[in-house]
């Protein structure tokens, strides 16, 4: 083919927003192509909600923040960044952006062989405090070394373990797994869900102790957490 190698920018509409697929290339080049594309179709993009699909590219907070601001200058609001790299995903989450489109099973999910192979077995480790507004959704287990503050949310298809204070909203076994458990050193969640069961933490009695919550005969029960005994 005699087509000169240039960065591609593809746009497609989904629901009430747009998905922009960025092609391969240097990040500077890609950005240039993207903004050229937007400027050519200013009236189309003005006021649009855009999800960016960045593929395998790794983006850090600086790059993503700048991009978001530059897009905002052109009246485009960035609401999601979709990518294959966990770094990119966590950056997007830190900036309060979504990391997947609302349709859960995209073609991309099918291509993630490793993930689906490990489904239910894989886990992510978050070594930070999850502050208000921070949301983690993960297909597998979630382990947090730090606190989960009120206003933060964890959704996991597996279990959730918090080495710290759990005060936010947590949903374990989100895809229906009733065997999932939630453990924390100090367990006072705003709301706790396991599969389809919802419970609210009772007022604390006695001193703080590590607890484990699971579903037992259709009831959400909390009991002292003795990791040695191994739970389920």
């Amino acid at each position: 083919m005699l087509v000169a190698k240039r960065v591609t920018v593809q746009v497609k509409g989904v629901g009430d927003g747009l998905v922009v697929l960025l092609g391969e290339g240097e990040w500077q080049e890609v950005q240039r192509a993207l903004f050229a594309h937007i400027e050519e179709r200013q009236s189309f993009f003005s006021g649009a909600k855009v999800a960016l699909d960045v593929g395998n590219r790794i983006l850090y907070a600086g790059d993503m923040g700048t991009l978001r601001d530059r897009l905002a200058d052109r009246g485009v609001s960035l609401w999601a960044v979709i990518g294959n790299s966990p770094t990119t995903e966590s950056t997007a989450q830190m900036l309060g952006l979504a990391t997947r489109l609302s349709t859960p099973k995209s073609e991309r999910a099918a291509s993630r062989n490793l993930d689906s192979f490990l489904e239910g077995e894989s886990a992510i480790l978050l070594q930070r405090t999850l502050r208000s507004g921070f949301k983690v959704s993960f297909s597998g287990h979630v382990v947090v070394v730090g606190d989960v503050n009120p206003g933060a949310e964890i959704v996991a298809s597996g279990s959730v373990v918090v080495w710290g204070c759990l005060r936010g909203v947590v949903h374990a076994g989100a895809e229906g797994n009733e065997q999932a458990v939630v453990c924390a050193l100090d367990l006072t969640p705003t709301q706790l869900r396991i599969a389809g069961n919802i419970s609210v933490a009772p007022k604390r009695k006695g001193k703080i102790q590590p607890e484990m919550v699971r579903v037992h005969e259709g009831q959400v029960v909390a009991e002292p957490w003795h990791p040695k005994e191994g739970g389920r």
Partner: protein
Amino acid sequence: MTATVVTITSGKGGVGKTTTTANVGVALAAEGLKVVCIDADIGLRNLDVVLGLENRIVYDLVDAIEGRCRLRQAMIRDKRLPELYLIPAAQTRDKSAVSPSDMVRLCDELRPDFDWILIDSPAGIERGFRNAIAPADIVLVVTNPEVSAVRDADRIIGLVEAEEKGPPRLVINRVNTHMVKRGDMLAATDVLELLAIELVGLVPEDESVVVSTNRGLPVVLDGKLKVGQAFANIALRLKGETVAFTELDVKSDFLHRLSKMLRAGGE
């Protein structure tokens, strides 16, 4: 001289960002340091009123950024403290008149001439907030000891960390001393435990703040008031001095717990 840029923010409105900015600015200037306060709340300007400089505004922040005046012309010098300047916000425009990179450029221009640049952020987490924190070296998060303000402060801290600004520092404003004495306000320690960032200010609730705000005379100018001293202490701590938290003069379990917390936090 290279100024340190301090952005005062909160998330929730009405917790005392502007009061803190004005008083810390005055306290630093009273120490003989060159200070400029920038009101980044474009469209809802307040800082000029609190500092009592409202009637002297000719040009504002947006004029300076859009090149309708020189930066010097937008700076209002305080009559009481010759080292204190204010760059007021525009009242007839909105947040979109300024971009984060404009703020960075503006502060870089000011840095050589000042010791401290204080930026009063608008409430919220949108454009105005991003404008305000873009040039910050230090971010001060102001909160009140109540659940909604703390929730918003927590969100703000997460956003500041995501912008790679380092952990912000905390000011707990409007702590009610009577409630502390009654043992009803455990909130301050709980606040600190939840937010887990360095505390630089603990300001008691005081009616005279309302009076001083209306008159345009920051409370810190009145050396006798405890609340003024609390703001002055924030200025000292920003300068790197160690000042004990004696703002709340109560011998209670509260202070004991607080000092225990602080030790645990400063490991």
